[in-house]
């Protein structure tokens, strides 16, 4: 079975989720739980750092799709950063770059949130 874990940190109003391992149909619900938890506690500025994510499947991408509109309606966003080329390729193939803010580095994404406040 795939291994997956999430570590969390916070920088001012921005919550950063660091994903580790493999995000697939099996582990997608873990990420969903984490995002729901943030939304429940009214944290809408979310950065997801992919630097230690080795693999992502469509179901993993689906989690982002499921909440992006709601988050944006609430004035927040999910920004995606530090993707390995293999992971970025999946996002790119499925056309995510047109819908998502995908940036190179975590701090760049954090800065974007803070500067627009």
């Amino acid at each position, binding site marked *: 079975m795939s291994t997956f874990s999430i570590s969390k940190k916070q920088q001012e109003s921005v919550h950063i989720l660091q994903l580790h391992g493999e995000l697939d*149909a099996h582990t997608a619900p873990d990420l969903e739980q984490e995002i729901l938890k943030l939304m429940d506690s009214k944290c809408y500025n979310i950065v997801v750092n992919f630097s230690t994510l080795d693999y992502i499947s469509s*179901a993993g991408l689906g989690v982002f799709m499921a909440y992006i509109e709601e988050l944006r309606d609430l004035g927040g966003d999910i920004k995606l950063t530090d993707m390995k080329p293999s992971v970025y390729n999946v996002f790119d193939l499925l056309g995510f770059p047109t819908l998502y803010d995908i940036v190179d580095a975590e701090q760049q994404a954090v800065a974007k949130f803070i500067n627009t406040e």
Partner: protein
Amino acid sequence: MLIESHDTDFILNNLLLIVMGKLMVPKAAILLVNYQSNRLKAGRCKGRLPFSEGDSWDPAVKELPYDKSLYSAAELATQLPEIVNSAGFSHYFPIRTSSEHLGYLCISLKAGKREHGPKELEFIENLVIIFSVALSNSFLVGRLKSTNRELDEKVQELNTLFDVSREFNTMVDRSQMLNVFRFTLMGQMFIKKFFLLMCVDKQPFMVVQHGVKGEMNLASKSKLLEMEDECIEVSSLADADPFLTKNEIFALVRVRFQDETAVLGISERMNRMPYRESDYNFLISLGNLAFLSIQKTYLLEERIEKERMEEELSIARTIQNTLFPNPLPKVDDLEIAALNIPSQQVGGDYYDALISGKRYLYTAIADVTGKGIPASLLMANLQAMIHVLSPLQLPLDETTGKVNDIMFKNTPSDKFISFFWGRLDTGTRLFEYCNAGHNPPVRWNQQTQKTELLSAGGMLLGALSTMMPYEQGSFYLQQGDVVVMFTDGISEAMNEEEEEFGEERIAWLLEENHHKSAAEIQSIILEEVRVFCNGNYGDDVTMLILKAE
């Protein structure tokens, strides 16, 4: 540098700039032909022209000539679209490789309408040859890239299907499964509103819906499940349900396995990309996987439910067994034999034998219409009443009327009970009885050496409230007398010719065997019935036999 560049725009732009600069041409354009779409397209344009970059037309593309290295405007006039003719080009240089026609470089006369010299035209001809190679290469690279990307997309789709099927195989929890399905639709296809409709317990049911509001009525759901095409766009439906249009459902995809159908409804994609045929194929595959796995969970639940029911039934059977007298009471100079074989786990037949006030023996036999749990509930109800009433030593006829009134209130209109009960005064041997619509028990009268039927009584219990009082019959149970009470499981047992065993056979068996013990008579009758119907009783079988010593 040009030859190495694979950037089509860069190449086209350069070609135009070189030509325009070198020959001082105020208007120039590159027209590209596309054999697949059969169109001629303005690739790059410079100068004041009646069309802009990206415009395209549909002349007979395959007939556009490209044998020569230069055509005059007049030579091509009949074959080019009017708007191109009107642009004021004077020379058309075919851009071509040895095997294919890529398009034309079109130029006007020099500024001030001056003619181009032959050396100049020759230079352009040569230039176009060089550019043709570069352009052809860049097209090839472009095609390779897009083929590569298509391949990558296919690989990604396969990975997704693999991922999902692996996940579905290990899951038994339906809600988890539906979550994976939901995420995959959103992640792979960018679909934000969708539903999956399938039959559950023969009823159309939305097993999953996301982003849609409201409900579709049952008739529309059933109709959807009968759709004949693999894919249908909702806009092409003549009478689409408002649920579909209101929720912006764009297309319906049919998923089929054996005779079962499910329908996946999908909205447009969040990235506004149209659905291609390959996308529909992916959706069908994913839908199929989900459909099968979800069905599997329902079947599993059904099996668990069935096992639970069976366990409950077996508990019910245990309880019902305690309602039958065990052991049978012992009365001096009287043999009692009884048996009950339910055709299902629990049954609707009832017999009883109980001693009341030391002097009286009550015996009863009853048959509730129907079988299984509903019948057994009524049987338990009747048993309770008999046990409460018997110590009171009330007249049997009146009491039967009261029991009927209660049963009438307790039972739905299609449930009845045929009931016979008797009370033996063990001192005087007086046997009083009342028969409420039950198969009349057969008595062997030792004195007359004949059988007689005990039918005094009235109508079935539970059918109507008591209007006519019940009658009661009585006789003295003499030494050697036998009373055989039975239910229709005995009298109506059928043989292969669909003949019933019949009461006459019981009476006849009794005549033949009255001198035997109650238990022996019982075994003989049961064995005869078993042979007669070849073991297929078809109904609960119950008997109660009294024999006076």
